[in-house]
């Protein structure tokens, strides 16, 4: 399959996504933020970084890039879209995913390995069994997920909560296991249909066996498998 990786001014994780796709035997190409043609791509990736310098709010300006109108149409047609870190922030600003990402509770930029628990969800980008633990690093300043209680209940009922931060043994600490203070330890969510996925951790950084951990590969292999099945 062929991934389209959007580059906004200030994106800085696009090369990692391309590399991860290649390692897994897939094709991947860049898409410029001014482009409006996504034909030829099976899935779209909004990578991490600091699009437009994070001015106003993270993702607030990128959301109005010419390419984003096309990404919204692509998602509405059922095309798979993933937003990683800044990409997740852009997806919430574009209202493709509910809620918002606030500044980390401890006011610190956090760059560390985390353990994530796979939840039972409708997400097309995650076919690992519920309860599976994944070690995937985070690298952000605004990953503190928030939404109103009604939205949280709706997401829970619809199977839209895909990944939660947890302790290394899979348990969740009483005061929360999210290093950034995220509501209900939420690390990644999808839309109702399951084709749009946003997460703060960086799965593309733990795909190449050369880095020692390959827990991020499942994100890319899940969507590839699904696309192969549905043709």
């Amino acid at each position: 399959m062929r991934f389209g990786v959007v580059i906004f001014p200030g994106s800085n994780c696009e090369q990692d996504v391309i590399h991860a796709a290649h390692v897994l035997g897939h094709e991947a190409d860049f898409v410029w933020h001014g482009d409006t043609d996504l034909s030829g791509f099976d899935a779209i990736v909004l990578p991490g970084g600091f699009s437009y310098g994070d001015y106003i709010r993270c993702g607030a300006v990128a959301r109005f890039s010419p390419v984003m109108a096309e990404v919204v149409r692509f998602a509405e047609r059922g095309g798979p879209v993933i937003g990683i870190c800044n990409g997740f922030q852009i997806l919430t600003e574009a209202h493709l995913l509910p809620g918002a990402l606030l500044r980390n509770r401890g006011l610190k930029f956090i760059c560390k390995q985390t353990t994530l628990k796979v939840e039972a969800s409708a997400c097309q980008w995650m076919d690992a069994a519920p309860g599976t633990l994944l070690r995937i690093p985070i690298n952000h300043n605004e990953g503190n997920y928030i939404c109103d209680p009604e939205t949280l209940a709706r997401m829970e009922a619809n199977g839209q909560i895909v990944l939660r931060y947890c302790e290394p043994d899979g348990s969740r600490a009483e005061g929360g296991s999210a290093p950034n203070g995220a509501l209900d330890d939420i690390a990644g969510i999808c839309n109702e249909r399951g084709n749009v996925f946003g997460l703060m951790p960086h799965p593309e950084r733990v795909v190449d066996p050369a880095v020692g951990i390959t827990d991020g590969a499942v994100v890319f292999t899940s969507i590839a498998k699904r696309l192969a099945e549905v043709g």
Partner: protein
Amino acid sequence: MARFQIFVTYKKGIFDPPGATAERALVSLGYDEVSSVKIGKFIQLEVADGTSEERVVEMCGKLLANPVIEDFRIEPVEEA
């Protein structure tokens, strides 16, 4: 030239980490009377004369504030 001042603050119930930190810092500096600090954004907007406040509300809802987490207040600035 017309001017507007825009105040963007977190909605009630949204935790404001910089505000909470400033609050603790003020109390630890001896300002025991401080019970709450909320930190938001202040935006000064210059627009063509005759621009309606509705247009400014639209700008806020679309870009300058995120209605999911933020409230905004708009004040026209009277020229001296």
